[in-house]
């Protein structure tokens, strides 16, 4: 038996009858025990017909319903076609009617007519548009995505007022059906990538998708990778910039995050501010981020390897001072490092969900305990504290939270390898990491681009950022149809020629 989208009784009638009371009774039987289901019966002034309007009281904009629908019909001799609602749709299917009511529309039944009118009077509790929380920016806009899909689409459209910007809607989820919207530039995007993505979304079999992250896990290429394969952004300007580069933005209604795909490893190190500050300065910051990537992954492992195996590498003066600071520490370097790194991770996790005033307390307590007291008590060495601090700072420089989290996780297997095999273990770890990044795909395009496969043309926007006028072409990694960036988009006729 097929499961109906909205849970209505599959044995019941599929079409409304022509009797008003019958329809009302049937609807009421479906919405049994739902106190917010409302039926308002009235007479249409002009024709004298009996009518009823059905809606869920909490999901409907009552102002619009009262002033634009009920009042004109009841007192102003208005006809239905003159109702001041922007979107009116006739329907003769219970399935569609019930879905509409569940999504916040109100439905008008008129006696002796079997088709009902679905009136777009949706109005639910909304948050106003505010600053993006995770991706603060110095010079970028201060509008972040909100929980209403249609508003998010509007935010992106404001950046790209172009006919080629297509907005394609899909439904995902059997019970809590969510609207998933794909935004892309039709004359730029690789159609292969688009069909691949659509197919993956259509193949999702799930009860409900509550968040973009869930969708991401269903459509990504490799679920067993710690690395994010889609950019999750809450900034409309970032989304627009990626769409212009030939990528797709995926917006899930009810979630304030847009997914961008196909992505590359490189794009997680870019931030909107890079393009609005001086290119020399932002090149410097970019290279810092890549340096931070290596520090955050390898520094603790290197410490372990150098102290426990390959101390011959360290110059004699340094090894003496490290030895002096480790003199009182009873643990081997691996235990010492794991202890500190785990404490740091706990501290970070504790800080995230605490309200701001308590969060500060945690910071102070953690800082003092981790730093001063642990060293004085002889549990860890001074050098270890410096290394933990450097690692933490490095992992927070990465603009993408997901990438930072992946890096923080990879550090631990690296430390284990280093504690077992020293420098050689780190080499193996590096090799595995590199091989993983090389073989990873994002929507069928190489994730490691432009570093592997090497594409020098894309290096203009990688570890360094060259001046914008030099970036005349879109990145090849997303395989765009139209490579030229700084030219006006061709008309349909011109496109036909090429």
């Amino acid at each position, binding site marked *: 038996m097929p499961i109906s989208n909205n849970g209505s009784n599959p044995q019941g009638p599929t079409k409304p009858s022509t009797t008003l009371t019958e329809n009302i009774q049937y609807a009421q039987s479906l919405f049994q025990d739902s106190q917010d289901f409302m039926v308002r019966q009235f007479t249409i002034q002009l024709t004298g017909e009996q009518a009823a309007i059905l809606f869920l009281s909490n999901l409907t904009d009552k102002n619009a319903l009262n002033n634009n629908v009920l009042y004109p019909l009841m007192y102003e001799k208005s006809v239905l076609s003159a109702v001041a609602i922007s979107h009116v749709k006739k329907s003769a299917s219970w399935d569609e009617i019930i879905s509409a009511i569940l999504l916040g529309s109100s439905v008008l039944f008129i006696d002796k007519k079997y088709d009902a009118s679905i009136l777009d009077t949706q109005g639910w509790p909304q948050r106003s548009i505010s600053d993006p929380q995770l991706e603060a920016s110095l010079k970028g806009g201060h509008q972040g995505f909100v929980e209403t899909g249609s508003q998010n689409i509007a935010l992106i459209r404001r950046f790209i007022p172009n006919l080629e910007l297509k907005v394609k809607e899909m439904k995902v989820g059997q019970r809590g059906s969510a609207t998933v919207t794909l935004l892309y530039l039709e004359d730029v995007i690789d159609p*292969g990538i688009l069909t691949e993505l659509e197919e993956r979304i259509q193949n999702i079999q799930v009860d409900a998708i509550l968040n973009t992250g869930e969708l991401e896990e269903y459509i990504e290429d490799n679920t067993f990778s710690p690395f994010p394969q889609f950019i999750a952004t809450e900034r409309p300007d970032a989304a627009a910039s990626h769409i212009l580069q030939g990528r797709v933005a995926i917006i899930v209604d009810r979630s304030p995050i847009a997914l961008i795909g196909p992505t590359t490893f490189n794009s997680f190190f870019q931030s909107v501010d890079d393009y609005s500050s001086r290119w020399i300065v932002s090149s410097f910051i970019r290279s810092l981020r890549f340096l931070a990537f290596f520090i955050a992954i390898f520094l603790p492992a290197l410490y372990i390897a150098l102290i426990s195996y390959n101390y*011959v590498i360290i110059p004699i003066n340094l090894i003496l001072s490290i030895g002096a600071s480790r003199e009182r520490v009873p643990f081997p370097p691996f235990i010492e490092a794991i202890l500190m790194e785990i404490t740091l991770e706990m501290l970070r996790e504790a800080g995230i969900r605490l309200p701001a005033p308590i969060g500060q307390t945690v910071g102070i307590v953690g800082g003092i305990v981790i730093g001063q007291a642990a060293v004085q008590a002889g549990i860890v060495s001074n050098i270890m504290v410096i290394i933990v601090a450097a690692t933490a700072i490095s992992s927070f420089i990465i603009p993408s939270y997901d990438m930072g989290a992946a890096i923080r996780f990879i550090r631990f297997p690296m430390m284990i390898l280093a504690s077992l*095999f020293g*420098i050689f273990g780190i*080499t*193996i770890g590096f090799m595995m990491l590199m091989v993983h990044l090389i*073989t990873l795909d994002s929507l069928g395009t190489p994730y490691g681009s432009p570093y*592997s496969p090497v594409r020098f043309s894309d290096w203009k926007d990688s570890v360094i950022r060259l001046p914008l006028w030099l970036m005349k072409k879109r990145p090849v990694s997303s395989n765009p149809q139209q490579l030229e960036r700084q030219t006006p988009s061709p008309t349909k006729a011109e496109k036909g020629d090429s």
Partner: protein
Amino acid sequence: MNTKTKTKQQITFMQYVFLIHGMQVGIGFLTLPRELSLIAGTDGWISIIIGWLSAVIASIFIIQIMKKHPDATLPDLFKIYFGTWIGKLGTMFVVLYFMSVSFLILFSALTIIKVWLLPKTPLVILTVLILIPTYQLIRYGIRSLGRYAEIIFYISIWMIVVLTIPLNDSHWHYLRPVLKEGWYPVLLGVRTTIFSYLGFEIAFWMYPYLKSKQLATRGIILANTLTMTINLIVTIVCFVFFSQQEIVKYNWPTLSLLKVIEPNFLNRWDVIFLSSYVLIISVTWIISIFIVIQNTSNLIGNPKLEPYLLIIFIVLLITAAAFIVWTQSRLTRLTDMLTSCGLILSYAFPVVLWMYTTLFDRIFPRRTSS
């Protein structure tokens, strides 16, 4: 599905170059200066250039053969020109050769690692460890192999720069006079140097995957030239740094060279250098294993078995590490054996095969024009 995943895997021109070059730069570059110095003295660098010339000639023959059937690998050519059974026999020899190459390279590299870095760790643990990324990579086929060879080349360029640091204390007069003992020792040295170019024969397998086939000859010459440049730099640096009496004392003079470099923030370069060297040399055994797997599946005639064959071969390698003691003398014996086989496969065989195929195509023009 995506149209791209359906089409056959391809490699770019640069990936093709770096795959061949990566296969060539192996253990050789650690031992070459010593061996050359033993045979040809300080004129050994001339042998390298002559070796390059012969490698290039043999490479061109290979590409000429491959051009006749752009989508066929060597086993397919065997089938076309020698029939099914003799072809299978030939493929079997090739499989055996590359199997031995992967054994030799893997265990030579791990022996060096063991001696210099981890003397107490059993070889089998190192083998298991290093085969994890190997498996990870080969599973994804030639495309990821190409990307790997490419990125390894770029991230190893610094090593060549580091190797030239000892030039500060160089003694260029060691090289003079040029040809002090005549041409004879130089020509004797060529036999050693052409071994260091072995690896271009993988063009037999890489050519069908190459995206722009018209560049194949240029690519293989470029790869040989890159290899020559690196061998030349390493050898000359060793020659002008060590005296001839000194150089023969070290098994791996290239590594001993690094012991000298002492920047004030690092005490010993060689440890770091050696760990990175694992990356370079890994390309060699990864390609060898890949070719073994490909040819075996071709022998069986079922490409679906490749993942299982890969696992079987990796288990075989681990078993070999566990039950065979890989002493230096054993490795040397294996090297000598493979040198002869390699010389035949890479230098003599292409020429003969080219003449045979050309003749064959003249006599039976229809049979091969499929």
